[in-house]
């Protein structure tokens, strides 16, 4: 056997061909879970089947959210689909799906997509290419969309807690009237004693906790909590505390507190919670002092 033949035999045994990248694609501007990241330049038409159409449910996507469902129709003979953003390297590879009822001869593609935090706000074009069984691509289908920055919670007074880990942290806010809003009692408004009439909309005068982030160690994508006054807040001194309910396996948790009055920053603070903080009580009045300010 000649050396060249022997070499070819060895390579054939080893299995030639292009390997897929192990890069999970977490730095890509477009995110598609359960698809394979395809780094490098997006495909160029090379004689494969043309993509027919690409649709989204909304014309605008919120940056930092992963919730938009896309569907596409691909030309006959398509085996794979690459989804990407025009003008940016890096796409996501998916197998072509079964045809939709309305297009029985055309394979489909469907995925849930999202835009990474670093995505620039403004217009962009989402593109899909179809590939055949030789890995050749045809003309793409596109859809023009708008990337919107995530809106901050609207309110007269907003106190925000944000962190980036697995821990279950609780925001506690005490208003000048002594009411405290936190996960187990989410409104600073104190109802009147039993027997006294209750104003049915009086609860709206309090600061209300929007949700419990990482509740019971069920991790949110990007955990945060807000206490929001939608009506003019009472004048006086506000106390903001952060309680570490559980570390949920994490070693420590860095957090960030900010208070906004009609969108203007009143004050901010940073801190770190550790396992020692979990040992403290977790009821009303719990937590370490993070911020104090006066209106």
């Amino acid at each position, binding site marked *: 056997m000649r050396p060249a033949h022997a070499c070819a035999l*060895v390579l054939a*045994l*080893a*299995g030639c*061909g*292009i*390997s*897929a*990248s*192990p*890069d*999970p694609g*977490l730095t890509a501007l477009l995110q598609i*879970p359960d698809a*394979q990241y*395809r780094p490098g330049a997006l*495909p160029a038409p090379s004689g494969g089947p043309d993509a027919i159409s690409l649709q989204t*449910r*909304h014309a605008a996507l919120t940056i930092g959210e992963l*919730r*938009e*469902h896309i569907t596409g129709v*691909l030309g*006959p*003979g*398509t*085996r*794979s689909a*690459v989804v990407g953003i025009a003008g940016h390297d890096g796409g996501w*590879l*998916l*197998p*072509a*799906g*079964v*045809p939709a009822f309305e297009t029985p*001869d055309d*394979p489909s593609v469907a995925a849930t997509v999202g835009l990474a935090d670093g995505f620039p706000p403004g217009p962009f074009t989402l593109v899909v290419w179809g*590939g*055949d*069984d*030789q*890995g050749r*691509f045809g003309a793409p289908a596109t859809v023009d969309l708008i990337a919107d920055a995530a809106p901050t919670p609207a309110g007269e007074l907003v106190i925000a807690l944000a962190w980036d880990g697995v821990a279950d942290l609780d925001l506690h806010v005490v208003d000048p009237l002594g009411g405290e809003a936190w996960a187990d009692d989410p409104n600073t408004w104190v109802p009147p004693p039993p027997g006294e009439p209750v104003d049915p909309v009086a609860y709206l005068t309090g600061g209300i906790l929007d949700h419990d982030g990482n509740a019971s160690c069920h991790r949110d994508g990007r955990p945060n909590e807000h206490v929001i006054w939608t009506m003019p807040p009472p004048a006086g001194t506000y106390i903001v505390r952060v309680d570490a309910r559980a570390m949920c396996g994490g070693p420590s948790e860095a957090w960030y507190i900010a208070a906004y009055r009609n969108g203007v920053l009143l004050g901010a603070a940073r801190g770190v919670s550790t396992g020692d903080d979990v040992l403290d009580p977790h009821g009303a009045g719990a937590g370490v002092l993070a911020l104090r300010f006066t209106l």
Partner: protein
Amino acid sequence: MAADPQAPPPIATRGDWLFDLTGFVQADAVVWSQASVDELDPSTREPLNEQRFLVRRGLLRAAAHKDALSAAIELDGDTQDGPTVRIFGAQVGWTYAPGASPGDPPDARTLVAVTAGLVPIPFGVDVPANVRTQPFLEQPAMSRALFPGNFDAGLTVAGSYGFARWSLAIMNGAPAGDAQWRGKDPTSSYDFVGRLGADIPGPRRLRVEAGVSALSGTGLHPGIPPTKDGIQWVDDNQNGIVDPTEIQIVPGSPGEPSQKFSRNAVGADVQVHWCLCALGTGTAFFEAALATNLDRGLVYSDPVAASRDLRQLGFVLGAVQDLGPYAQVGVRYDRYDADRDAMDREGTALVNAHKIFSTLAIMASARWADARFTVEYDRERNPFGRGDDGAPTTLAADRLTLRAQVRF
């Protein structure tokens, strides 16, 4: 693990009992890995970095012998997934070796050896082999899939007569490295495993070993416990608001019992040993296995969940050659198809999508006294990626590894 043929004299005696304490440490450095990424696995949150130093194995074996009786326990530590120590093997045994003398090799005149405990699975050559003396850094995919961990709890009867070699075992059927049951047997039935072989000497120090192996056993498909009613929000219109029509009731289910299924395997192996005067000894080897529902390590076989039997086919072939007393080189190719009937839908086409793992391993090592330094390049193919043609393809995983091993 089989007794070390080059074990030093016993370290202690008490009455008629002889005690040995031996071991080895393998320190690895993965200097290059295609699969290495400084990120976390999105699902498991485990680091994806593979370029690192690690202790691949640190094994301590304590053994005791008295006439025909023996006992041994082996502890194995490693840092693959963080520092850990576990029991690797533990056996009690009785040996009947008429005519044997203390200087004989361990298996030379053993007519019958009965061993019970956590013992090597007697299937083929690679699975029960001694990890201290294996020339390649890791086992082939076939062994890692069909017999993960190499050891299982059970009773083994082995022996030799003339050129014949035989070993039969009744075992739990849950190997130490079983990905689902982690060595704890889920069924009351046992697996029967055995190998019949021959060791035939030839002229000019040529020696041929060959054998056939078989396994018959039972696996378990785990049932599901009863569940309660639940609710789930499905954002049908994707407006981010919980609309009344988007709350779905997930009804409770009564649960399902576990189901047993049968699994089996047959295998064949052959090794040719030679001695070249100028270079030293060498070995060429080939081993193959055909199995049904037996993968317990890589692509776990559950024919109940898959609604069909899962058929596996694997083989390994290679050669190792000494280059004088201080060096050795070797090459090995292994290929394992974890599901020979797998299909994948790509668009309107339904295509075969065999789950194939293969590795071409090229090894060179230097030896001095009880130390060994090995460098190995592994070219891996696997079914975890997807290519531009939509078909499964390799997720790049080639690597270069250095290993220093010292035994004592």
